[in-house]
């Protein structure tokens, strides 16, 4: 990386960069056209709390439809939350007016899942990457903009001669790099990465992941990295949060989560991560049934309908979040601090404990 983005003094404060408290988003279901009335709500996100530190990657994992992408968009206020609190560097994001919000856009950015849908097909690469620069008045004229875009293209590993090309002339991986360059253009402190590699070929996935890691090291970026499986997150995240039907069920530092998963759902997810070694045999936890509809979530613990070890209390009472060890939070009735929690199978990861694949993506 020959090109330097603007230097930013790293404020080594204890306060987290981002704090999310009790975030809720209910999408109303309405009936009727003129005299519409609300007949229900899709509880996409239902009380999510977590923090994200400077330069840290928090993996947010869950099945499709569990509300993880919605969570990312709520933080950026691309969707307005129903209730809850979001603080970015201590500032109340949800109370921000239009102008403050615009200023915030320079500090928080997003990378999208679908590299084909996230770039405007009628704009050239220079226009796409240069747009945030123009909107925030970071460049004076077109030449300056193009120079800056050239730098950004090189930062993400594309050639500057791609400047006047259109998105459809690129491959999926290259497009995703363009999306990353657009997010980097405003020199943000935090990027919400919404499944940035799940639409890419496996061979390209690791390249993009490595790029994201390099960028993090270089510019001290914090990532909220959304993914639908634990395999991708394993390489990039420092901490991992597992989400099920709009709620966080477990949040722990990566090693802790992979070695000592507490929540039955986390264990099931881990047992589904493929191991690239056919000689290793292991048990798998096959969850029965489908994810219930978020418009009519189950009572009590939302996972009880599919949980193999559910008890009577799980159907009645929403489990409180307990901290089983420093930084390891679980929402399950069967998990109690100081006691061994439920174990569905001996070794859900299938990998000998203590070796939670720290190697880089290969």
């Amino acid at each position, binding site marked *: 990386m*020959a090109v330097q983005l603007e230097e930013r003094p790293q404020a080594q404060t204890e306060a987290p960069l981002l704090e999310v408290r009790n975030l809720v988003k209910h999408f109303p279901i309405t009936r009727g*056209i*003129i005299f*519409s009335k609300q007949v229900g709500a899709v509880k996409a996100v239902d009380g999510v709390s977590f923090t994200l530190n400077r330069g840290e990657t928090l993996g947010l994992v869950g099945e499709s439809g569990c509300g993880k992408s919605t969570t990312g*968009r709520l933080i*950026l206020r*691309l969707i307005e939350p129903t209730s809850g609190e979001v603080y970015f560097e201590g500032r109340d994001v949800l109370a921000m007016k239009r102008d403050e*919000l*615009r200023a915030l*856009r*320079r500090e928080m*950015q*997003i990378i*999208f*899942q*679908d590299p084909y*849908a*996230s*770039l*405007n*097909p*009628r*704009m*050239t*690469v220079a226009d796409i990457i240069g*747009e*945030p620069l123009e*909107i*925030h008045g970071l460049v004076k004229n077109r030449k300056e903009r193009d120079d800056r875009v050239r730098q950004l293209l*090189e930062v993400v*590993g*594309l*050639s*500057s*001669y*791609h*400047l*006047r*090309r*259109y998105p*459809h*002339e690129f*491959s*999926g*991986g*290259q497009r995703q790099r363009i*999306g990353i360059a*657009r997010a980097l*253009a*405003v020199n943000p402190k935090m990027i919400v990465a919404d499944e940035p590699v799940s639409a890419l*070929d496996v*061979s*390209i996935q690791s*390249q993009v992941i490595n790029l994201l890691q390099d960028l993090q090291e270089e510019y001290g970026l914090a990532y909220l990295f959304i993914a639908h499986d634990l395999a991708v997150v394993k390489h990039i995240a420092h901490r991992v949060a597992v989400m099920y039907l709009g709620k966080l069920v477990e949040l722990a530092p990566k090693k802790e989560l992979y070695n000592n998963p507490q929540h039955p759902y986390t264990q099931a997810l881990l047992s589904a991560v493929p191991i690239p070694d056919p000689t290793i045999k292991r048990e798998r936890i096959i969850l029965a049934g489908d994810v219930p509809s978020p418009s009519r979530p189950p009572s009590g613990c939302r996972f009880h309908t599919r949980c193999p070890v559910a008890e009577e209390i799980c159907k009645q009472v929403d489990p409180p979040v307990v901290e089983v060890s420093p930084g390891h939070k679980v929402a399950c009735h069967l998990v109690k601090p100081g006691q061994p929690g439920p174990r569905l199978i001996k070794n859900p990861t299938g990998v000998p404990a203590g070796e939670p694949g720290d190697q880089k993506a290969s």
Partner: protein
Amino acid sequence: MHASVEAVAATATPEVVPGRSLWSDARRRFFRNKLAVLGLIIVVGLVLVAIFAPYIAPYDPLEQLAWEDFSKSLAPPSWEHPFGTDLYGRDIFSRVIYGTRISLSIALMAAVVTTAIGITLGALAGYFGGWVDSFITWLINVVWSFPFLLFVLAIITIFPEASLTIIFIAIGVVSWPDIARMTRGQFLAARENEYVEAAKAIGASDFIIIFRHILPNIIAPMLVQATLAMGSYIQLEASLSFLGFGVPPPTPSWGRMASEGQNYLFSGQWWWSIMPGIAIMVTVLGFNLLGDGLRDALDVRQQTDG
């Protein structure tokens, strides 16, 4: 999508490679479609005919030659009068040539009026949603629930004398819901695109999102719709004139000529009615071919390389 392609890095040539825009791709596809090119030739030809009508028409379209020479009344097509003459000895060929002006200007102006109203209301409804959407959708349904031709006739009869302006305004006021509904649908779909979300995320205003990110991406179907609609406006003008509500005589209008000539259709003087009829047919066909060709060329889903 090969790793080697991915890895093409800063080592490559410093010059900027110009990209192929979607428009240039569409242009290439359009010109490979023979029917589309035929449609374009017809429409461009008609526009030229309308502009240069005085130089093409051999006679004054209003001049009644029968007063001096009775044989000029209802004369069959000949070298002198290629399309024949009508009862008053007016040269039908010249009248058809001049009629192009009426038909095309009504089609064009009606299309301008409908797209202006339609795109504005449709964009507001589709982009902002909520009560704005409810109100505009309601308005669309109200206008749509009127019998189309009756509504146009009603508007025209309000005014003491029909004129070109009144006719295309009447057509525009009644037919904007088609465009509005389509624009609304396109906006609803386009609003969900991730690049619109991305624009929001970088702090783009509603104005930038609408005019830079949404409209350029939906302009293609609107263009197709407007082109096809122009064909139907020409038919509509012909219908109005046929019913006697069109441009007042003696202005040459294809619909009126067809109407006046129909009494002579079975007594052998077919040319009075048929010649303007053919003009209407060719014009509508031209617009439809052009519209279909544009649709095929601009449809992103049918895109192929080459």
